[in-house]
């Protein structure tokens, strides 16, 4: 019988770097591999990525499998599933972790079906069961209204892990590991898609996912004008603006700033929720914030169940006064 051993992390590469989520996964993978007393390997797929092959080792990997070819310049489902299938069948890891990014969401389920196993997507907690040594995977379900813990008895046990579930590991440049190149005999005609255009829509100012302070607006803001005020506050606090789903769906703000289950996941030090009810699907994306402050005219709004401080009142009255106090203080300090 062939034995599945070790833990494998798929490390996403973007613009010549490991993504922040890939580094977080290496930390998580290292922790679980140590619990199992097994090896941690990393997989890098791309074009011209050999220079990156030591990076996963610095962050905890023992082995790095590199699939490097111009065929993998763009992420495409057919080519990446093919490459991962080959690496997994060769290495036979017991556990395979991917990030819950747009690529991970696309790659992991199809790969799981291909390998006749299963993946639990969007995990926020992974533990090893002390007795059975099985991977227990917990994820939000019902739009964040509940959580479910699953296990899968086929191998590899696969999970996609949500961003910011764990803080990134410290780099250790003294760590040693092995780099293994893997040739994948893929023919171009097996790739049934072609990327015609790739556009990055970075929003000016502080990146929402990196911001220490996030001011979030909901349906109650009423329009794009209102969001200007939130932007003013965010600017004073050197933070970023986010939104719940309705303002995005209504076109008041770009969809890229949606926070929640189907949007961005944020873990700022301070989150200020303005005129939003605090739906579970939104809280799924921001409940990791250290401090939550809420302004809402409805005292029964769900956001007050998770906030530390709140004001019950019309944001149109409360927010300008708050902004004025803050900016007056700033001016006095100068």
């Amino acid at each position, binding site marked *: 019988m062939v034995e599945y051993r070790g833990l494998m992390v798929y490390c996403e590469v973007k613009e010549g770097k490991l993504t922040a989520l890939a580094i977080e996964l290496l930390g998580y993978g290292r922790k679980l591999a140590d619990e199992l007393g097994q090896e941690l390997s990393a997989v890098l797929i791309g074009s011209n990525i050999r220079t990156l092959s030591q990076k996963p080792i610095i962050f905890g990997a023992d082995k790095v499998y590199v699939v490097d070819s111009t065929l993998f310049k763009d992420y495409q489902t057919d080519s990446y599933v093919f490459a991962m299938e080959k690496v997994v069948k060769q290495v036979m890891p017991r556990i395979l972790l991917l990030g819950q990014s747009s690529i991970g969401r*696309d790659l992991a389920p199809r790969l799981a079906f291909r390998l006749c196993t299963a993946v639990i997507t969007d995990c926020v907690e992974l533990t090893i069961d002390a007795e059975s040594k099985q991977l227990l995977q917990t994820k939000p379900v019902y739009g964040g209204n509940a959580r479910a813990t699953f296990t899968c008895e086929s191998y590899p046990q696969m999970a996609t892990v949500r961003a910011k579930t764990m803080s990134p590991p410290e780099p250790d440049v003294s760590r040693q590991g092995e780099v293994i190149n893997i040739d994948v005999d893929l023919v171009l005609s097996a790739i049934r898609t072609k990327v015609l255009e790739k556009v990055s829509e*970075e929003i000016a100012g502080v990146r929402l996912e990196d911001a220490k302070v996030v001011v979030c607006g909901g349906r109650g803001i009423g329009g794009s004008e209102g969001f200007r005020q939130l932007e003013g506050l965010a600017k004073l606090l050197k933070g970023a603006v986010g939104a719940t789903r309705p303002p995005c769906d209504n076109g008041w703000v770009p969809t890229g700033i949606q926070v929640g289950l189907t949007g961005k996941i944020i873990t700022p030090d301070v989150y200020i929720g303005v005129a939003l009810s605090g739906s579970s699907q939104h809280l799924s994306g921001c409940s990791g914030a250290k401090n939550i402050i809420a302004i809402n005219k409805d005292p029964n709004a769900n956001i007050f169940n998770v906030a530390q401080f709140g004001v019950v009142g019309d944001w149109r009255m409360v927010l300008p006064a708050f902004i004025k106090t803050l900016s007056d203080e700033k001016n006095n300090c100068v």
Partner: protein
Amino acid sequence: MNIIVCIKQVMDPEAPPANFKIDPINNRMIALPSVELVVDPYAEYAIEAALKVKDVMGGKVTAISLGPNQVRDIVKKPLAMGADELILLEDTAFAEGDSWSTAYALAMAIKKIGSYDLIFCGRESSDWNAGQIGLGIAEILGLPSITLATKIEILGTKAIVKKVTDDGYEVVEVSLPVVITVSNEIGSPRYQTLKGVIAAAKKEPIIWKPTDIGVKMEQIGALGRRIKLIRLFQPVYEGKCEIVKGETPEEAALNLFQKLREAKIL
């Protein structure tokens, strides 16, 4: 164009959080009478995508829904929006499946339909939020797949699909037939028309049982599961919010500011 769209009946995910209560012994969500059943809003975007293609290209849109006890007035919604046919995979044997067993049954039903150019699914379901059905169907049927689509254009035997990425978007060309999962940026699902509602009322769904689609019984529903649910629970929030008051909203704002300073939050 033969277009298939997969939908699902769910508890209204937009219901206030207090409506979601768990039966911890059976690890199930309790269907409180206060929570309505609806067509999954994620699937409604898939219906909209299918109808948008039909608007331009013509053809037939067939909706498929899997599950036991499907309320006709609810699952007929795609017909009322403009779909032509509704197929229900309705049998207790289909119930309690996971992504694998559900995708398998849907793929076998699609195989039975036989002729298809486009298969649309929601990006995920609003109950288990797994996001695997579309990709699973594609893998089982050996079709290409594109996830998180926001715009679809058909050019001959190809589709040009705009899709969401983490920091923007991509435009991808793909050959037909293809499975596409749809994101909310496709645009608000259209309202049911009066004509559609009347047509839907007259139209009876086609019911397929496991034997109709040639599935292996041990591969569908609860029997076909590859993942085991160990526990369903709700995180407990501390609920210790300090409501900061004031005579006027402005004063409350000032008091909030001072509180945040004292607590060294700002």
